[in-house]
């Protein structure tokens, strides 16, 4: 299974990365009914995504994955706000700092260069309008084609993805979940964007459909050569799809490595736990479960946020935040137990 991940176009690590995230911090600030607090959903995260790379982001639910990608694509709506850091894209040699862009510039980049696939839910497409209207609203202005050519392009695109162009006349609720998600993916890729963010694109789907959708995403990546930021909590999906995976715990990146490295030699105790919890054929031993619950982001533990649940926890872990350390090229980890305590 893991070999499949290498079937797509290999990432181009030589040219400038498509996405550079630097020390990004984004909090939810709430002031209501006596509770004035910050929820540190994204806390000091840095990462890069190379051209043509599929970068996976993994982590338990409510670990800040979704906030991270919202922040990265600039979909920031109160009470979420960015506290610090930068997000820079590189499209066709041109740099775009996403927080420096004016709204119309940002709007111009969207879909043409930067596209997004949402978690497959009922409500991703406007429920009261036919699907063709969504295609028109999203893509028409970005493609600069006349109407007839535009619709031909859309239909060709759908056919290429094995979708009947008849879906254009349907309402979202008339489609099955899988169809809807595939249509959404078609919509997200119709402009052949350089960067696609996929947020749990297969989570709500059953296993068979999941496979179809993943295959479809891979095909698209192969055809377009786009970079992906692929977010899912499901490690087996990462194993199938991602070139490189970053593990997020409680708003922080704790480990990052190429997929094979991560699955064979994860160093962070949390990553090890995630990998170990994957089912293996023929293994009948009980999975060791992690004690405790994921921490509250409103009131996170001091020091390393994982320390209350960590089997290797040391004194320092509760006092200081472990720095990100490069263990090998393209393998970083933030753990005192791994990198050695320095006080």
């Amino acid at each position: 299974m893991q070999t499949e991940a290498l079937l797509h176009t290999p990432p181009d690590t030589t040219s400038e990365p498509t996405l550079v995230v630097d020390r990004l911090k984004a909090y939810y600030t709430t002031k209501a009914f006596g509770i004035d607090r910050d929820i540190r959903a994204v806390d000091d995260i840095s990462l890069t995504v190379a051209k043509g790379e599929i970068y996976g982001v993994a982590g338990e639910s409510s670990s800040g994955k979704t906030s991270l990608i919202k922040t990265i694509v600039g979909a920031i709506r109160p009470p979420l706000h960015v506290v610090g850091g930068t997000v820079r894209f590189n499209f066709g040699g041109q740099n775009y700092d996403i927080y420096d862009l004016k709204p119309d510039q940002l709007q111009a980049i969207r879909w043409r260069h930067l596209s997004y696939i949402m978690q497959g839910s009922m409500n991703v497409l406007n429920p009261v309008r036919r699907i063709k209207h969504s295609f028109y609203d999203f893509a028409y202005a970005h493609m600069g084609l006349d109407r007839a050519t535009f619709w031909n392009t859309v239909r060709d695109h759908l056919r290429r993805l094995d979708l009947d162009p008849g879906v254009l006349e349907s309402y979202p609720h008339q489609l099955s979940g899988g169809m809807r998600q595939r249509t959404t993916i078609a919509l997200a890729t119709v402009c052949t964007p350089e960067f696609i963010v996929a947020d749990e694109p297969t989570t709500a789907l059953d296993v068979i459909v999941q496979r179809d959708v993943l295959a479809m995403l891979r095909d698209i990546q192969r055809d377009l050569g786009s970079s992906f930021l692929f977010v899912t909590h499901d490690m087996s999906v990462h194993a199938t799809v991602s070139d490189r995976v970053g593990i997020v715990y409680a708003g922080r990146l704790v480990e990052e490595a190429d997929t094979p490295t991560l699955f064979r030699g994860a160093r962070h105790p949390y990553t090890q736990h995630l990998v170990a919890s994957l089912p293996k054929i023929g293994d009948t031993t009980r999975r060791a479960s992690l004690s405790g619950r994921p921490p509250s982001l409103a009131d996170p533990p001091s020091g390393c946020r994982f320390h209350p649940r960590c089997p290797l926890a040391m004194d320092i872990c509760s006092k200081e935040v472990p720095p990100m350390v490069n263990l090998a090229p393209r393998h970083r980890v933030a753990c005192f137990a791994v990198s050695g305590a320095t006080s």
Partner: protein
Amino acid sequence: MAAYMIFVARRFGQLLLVVFLGISATFFISHMTPVDPVAESITAITNFGKSDPEAIDLMRKTLTELYGLQGNLFEQYVTFWSRLIRGDLGPSLSAFPTPVSQIIFRALPWTVGLMISATLISFLLGNTLGALAGYYRKSRILKIVSLGLIGLQPIPYYVLAFILLILFGFVWPVLPITGGYEMNADLTLSFTLVLDILRHSILPAMALVLVGAGSWLTGMRALTSNIVTEDYVTFAELGGVGSTRILRSYVVRNAMVPQLTGLAMSLGAIFNGTVITEIVFGYPGIGTLLINAVHAGDYSLVLGLASLSIIGVAIAVFLIDILSPLLDPRIKAE
């Protein structure tokens, strides 16, 4: 299509039920009245004129016969329905033998006109402002306007109409405060007539709009702020869809469905408001007629007015109900 027909049939059943229950209740309530239309009529005749006791007895007998008040309650009920189905509401007792329907239909266009125009204005105004206020949450002008309208919204129609009457009738007397047009107006359609009618309808319509717009505004603002957090709005924003388009085709289109349902449910209340406003401003229409009929003990007219209000409002609700699938394709699938 079949699903839609079933939907329409079900709504139609509900319409019939509402009309049946409402009118039956109205019939029995109105026939419990101690007011004797014959006695009222005699009072009207003899109030100023001569009266010979013997003659009054005779008059009583004649009128009872004439008004067709014989028969027990159930027989009268059956007669009432059989006539109503043919569109006949019977003769008015205080304007005998003029048919009730003729009296009502003379006044009805005014009520319907005022109600429709005021409802449309307040619905559009309230929803537009509400959508804008919910979407552009930082605009100060919108905040002030919304606050003003929301503050007016809980005030009863009568009180607001009364305040407007004081303001524009006495304190700053610039607008006519009574009637639907000037005395001796030439009632053939002309620009002057339209202008005159408009001028007379400003205050009543204003009362209705000021009260009505606020509640649409609050509803729409809340809906908008909920809808903007929906996935499809986020998705559209991420898709680089222009904000005007998002507001119009994504936010408002989706908010329209509950707002229209809301409109259907509040039509009864809007109708009340219209009737009350008519009374305050001496505006022609069925409001004044209703009060007149009550004072004259004319229960055929009271019954006719109440029945017609119920039928009218119920039909309007029905129409809005069956139109809503056009706005929201999901409804007929339910």
